[in-house]
């Protein structure tokens, strides 16, 4: 077989990974391809014997000295969040104060909430009462399961501490 008929090396290697293919069949009978494959095998063996160098002994100390001058990551997030919160509140309040119509709308909305909230609470209480009197057992079971799942979740949260990246 002449070199011109040899397959592309990348195809050969892809088939080598897969374990079968026409290029691999060709390589089994081609001295040139077999030699290339053998070269790669040997090279891989040599490469596997290399190792990472040891870092300078002072690396950890130098890193920790620089870290010591930094604020703690949690505090950093807090400091980044406070200006955003203050700016948002400032803009919101500013808009409200400078706009009479918005201020009167806010007052009306608060009054409506108080009035509607009373009716809503009464409706919810009578609904819960009716549900309890017709299916007390299943409701109690659901509430208990809900409580267990919530407590487990709470326990996990407390155990892991705060996670600012998910906040």
């Amino acid at each position, binding site marked *: 077989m002449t070199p011109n008929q040899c397959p592309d090396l990348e195809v050969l290697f892809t088939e080598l990974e897969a374990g079968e293919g026409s290029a691999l069949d060709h390589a089994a009978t081609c001295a040139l391809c077999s030699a290339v494959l053998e070269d790669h095998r040997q090279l891989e063996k040599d490469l596997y014997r290399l190792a990472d160098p040891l870092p300078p002994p002072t690396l950890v100390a130098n890193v920790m000295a620089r870290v010591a001058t930094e604020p703690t990551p949690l505090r950093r*997030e807090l400091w980044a969040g406070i200006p955003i919160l203050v700016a948002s509140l400032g803009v919101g309040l500013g808009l409200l104060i400078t706009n009479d119509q918005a201020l009167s709308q806010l007052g009306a909305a608060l009054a409506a909430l108080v009035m509607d909230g009373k009716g809503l609470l009464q409706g919810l209480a009578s609904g819960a009462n009716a549900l309890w009197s017709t299916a007390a057992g299943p409701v109690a079971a659901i509430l208990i399961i809900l409580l267990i799942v919530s407590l487990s979740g709470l326990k996990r949260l407390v155990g892991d501490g705060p996670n600012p990246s998910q906040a």
Partner: protein
Amino acid sequence: MNALTFDPIGDIAQAIGSLMAEEAPTLPWKADVLAARRGDPNAFEALVRSVQRAVYGLALRLLNSEAEAAEVSQEAFLRAYQNLHRYDESRPFDLWVMAITRNLCLDLLRRRTKMRTEELEPMKEVLPSGEISLEDGAIARQERQSLEEAMTTLSAEDREVLALYYVQKRTTKEIAQILGCAPGTIMARLFRAREKLRKKMTTEEPT
């Protein structure tokens, strides 16, 4: 006991328990990360110690300069600390720091005006072999040295993939996470890098 018995509360509790049990052994860095976020320096030091060799190794392979590799490694750990609140602890900590290190190295390489001329010299005595033993003869050492030298002549992209796969024994999935590319492309990159290395080694061999 009947296997078909249904116990919803027991099952839920068991499921929650198994979820928590599965999570614990796969995230060994998590406790240190959480403690470091709260400002515990010992926890962060433990994290640095656990990955310093891999981080420095990658930096040295990419930069071919001990001083720069040490500087970049320090900077990478500092950046990691500064951004610890953004780190997703479900992802391996070492891969995250390695990705930071790689980005810093590539930035530095881009800034360099002369890349090739300054590289070869410091590597000769710096990089050790994986097997340090008395049986390891002078010929083997020489072969490894020429392999290291040939590696330094490759591009940074080729060097990093070879170093991560063969030297650090990372999986293609891990390498893909560090390089920020699809895992399916890693094997092809490895083959190409190895072929370039083979050609370098072949031309370097004495006739």
